[in-house]
């Protein structure tokens, strides 16, 4: 009887030691961290890479051909914003160079015949990186732009394209964005805060995000913003990606159903078509390491067994 009790006691002790060991490791890490909040104007948090792939289906309702155009330069409030520009790196089908080039980078476009519905895809990479997040510069709050025919468009909306060229009717918009955020400081405390990304046209539906978007805000009149609660240590870079679609169709639109802000970690992401793993331009990273954890546990278990056999029996 006494022997069984000692056995049970020892087993419990061994489990306790294991749990304490793991907990102490985690606690030690946490205790050594310092915290700071991201400062809007003085933050050293920067985008080091930003890429967008946009898929558009558009219909020409006119009785002659029209051109659907995109710009390679972002312009906010009628002036070219030097903090962020876009370089179109691929188009499908291949875009043609427009006449009357208004932007130094050149406008691109596709011809859409009368009555034709055409699907086009283009991928853009932000130039001028790294650029910092500045709340004062409203122009870089929102990213994507279709700039046809004027330069004053700050972001794209279905109504806007109808206004700019009422003969072109937007049928579908899918946007996939991914970017790196980097804490440019090499020392000092970690920074924490919310980072927001645009979802325009408004009333789009989020289909995928990685890591899962924490919030979708609909507080701006012309756009929703997807947000992550981020923590970055000095020198650390993290990646973020998300995909959304307009019109929302049957997919879940959290901002519409739970406005103004919704926690969506637990909501399903229903559109597998937007799954980045199906994107032929990207590959998953391999599992390139076998964790040491279980190996250490194995060694501890052996030592515990020997220790018990030698000293406690």
């Amino acid at each position, binding site marked *: 009887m006494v022997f069984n009790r000692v056995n049970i006691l020892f087993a419990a002790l061994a489990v306790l030691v294991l749990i304490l060991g793991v907990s102490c490791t985690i606690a030690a890490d946490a205790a050594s961290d310092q915290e700071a909040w991201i400062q809007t104007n003085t933050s050293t948090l920067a985008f080091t890479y930003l890429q967008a792939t946009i898929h558009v289906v558009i219909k020409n309702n006119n009785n002659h051909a029209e051109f659907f155009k995109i710009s390679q330069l972002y312009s906010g409030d009628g002036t070219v914003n030097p903090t962020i520009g876009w370089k179109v790196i*691929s188009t499908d089908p291949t875009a043609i160079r427009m006449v009357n080039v208004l932007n130094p980078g050149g406008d691109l476009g596709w011809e859409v015949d009368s009555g034709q519905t055409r699907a086009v895809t283009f991928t853009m990479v932000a130039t001028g990186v790294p650029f910092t997040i500045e709340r004062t510069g409203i122009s870089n709050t929102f990213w994507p732009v279709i700039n046809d025919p004027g330069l004053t468009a700050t972001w794209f909306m279905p109504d806007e394209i109808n206004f700019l060229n009422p003969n072109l009717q937007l049928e579908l918009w899918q946007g996939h964005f991914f970017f790196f955020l980097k804490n440019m400081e090499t020392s000092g405390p970690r920074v924490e805060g919310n980072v927001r990304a645009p979802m325009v046209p408004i009333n789009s539906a989020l289909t995928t995000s990685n890591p899962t978007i924490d919030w979708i805000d609909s507080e701006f009149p012309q756009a929703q913003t997807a947000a992550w609660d981020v923590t970055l240590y000095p020198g*650390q870079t993290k*990646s973020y990606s998300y995909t959304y679609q307009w019109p929302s169709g049957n997919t879940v639109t959290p901002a519409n159903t739970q406005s103004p802000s919704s926690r969506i970690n637990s909501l399903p992401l229903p559109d597998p078509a937007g799954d*980045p793993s199906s994107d032929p331009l990207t590959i998953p*990273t391999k599992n*390139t390491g076998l*964790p040491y954890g279980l190996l250490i*546990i*194995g060694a501890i*278990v052996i030592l515990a067994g020997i220790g018990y056999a030698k000293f406690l029996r």
Partner: protein
Amino acid sequence: MIKLSTLFVLIGMLIITLYGLIEVSYYASADNLVGNNSETPYLEIPKIGIDQAINDKSIDYGIYHDPRSAEPSFGTVAIFGHRTFYGSPFLNLDKLQAGDNITVEWPGIGNVEYQVMNSTVVPASYMLSIEQGKVLFLITCYPLGSDKERLMIEAKQENIYPINKSEKKPADNPPYAILIIIGFFASGTILSYFYPIKQDQYILFIATIAITILLIYAFLFPSPPDAIESKLAWVNDLFGV
């Protein structure tokens, strides 16, 4: 009846054996795969002592070029390597700094030189774009001993020059697989000999023999131990370690 302490030791031996099984399978299969094939590409990073063959079969054979990415000089190259176990080819990848040199010797293309630009840590679920121009990505796990994140080294392409046929020497590695098997047998024998419970010593020794036979089998008939690895990863996740 088997003692609780003996049971603990056996469980610990079993856990460590799974890791040993992976290493033995790796060294046996990697040697068979690479051999002295003149068409085999090589990765050379003098700063961290890497001069190793690249395969396009599996990351479990060593340094692995993802065939969905481009070959050097044609676009974005993605090369993966284990940081722990499997020979740990990318153990010291975090030591690379901006400006360090990397050479990829690729038969049919040449010696393609790259220069490190930056290093980045991304989540394990990260999807790498393979349309980023003529750059090389070396990718491994981060931090050491964990698979929660990935360390990515980005290097830009520099010069390309012809391969000097005589400069490549086949790697002459020690017989690690055999050494691991001998190590397991020796450790198990010593453990069973000095084990304090005399009547259970034979149990540990029988277990040692069984483990040794298992490792010899893995050496003679190697295969990528995906199943073992995934189970170990699952258990690691379960424990949160």
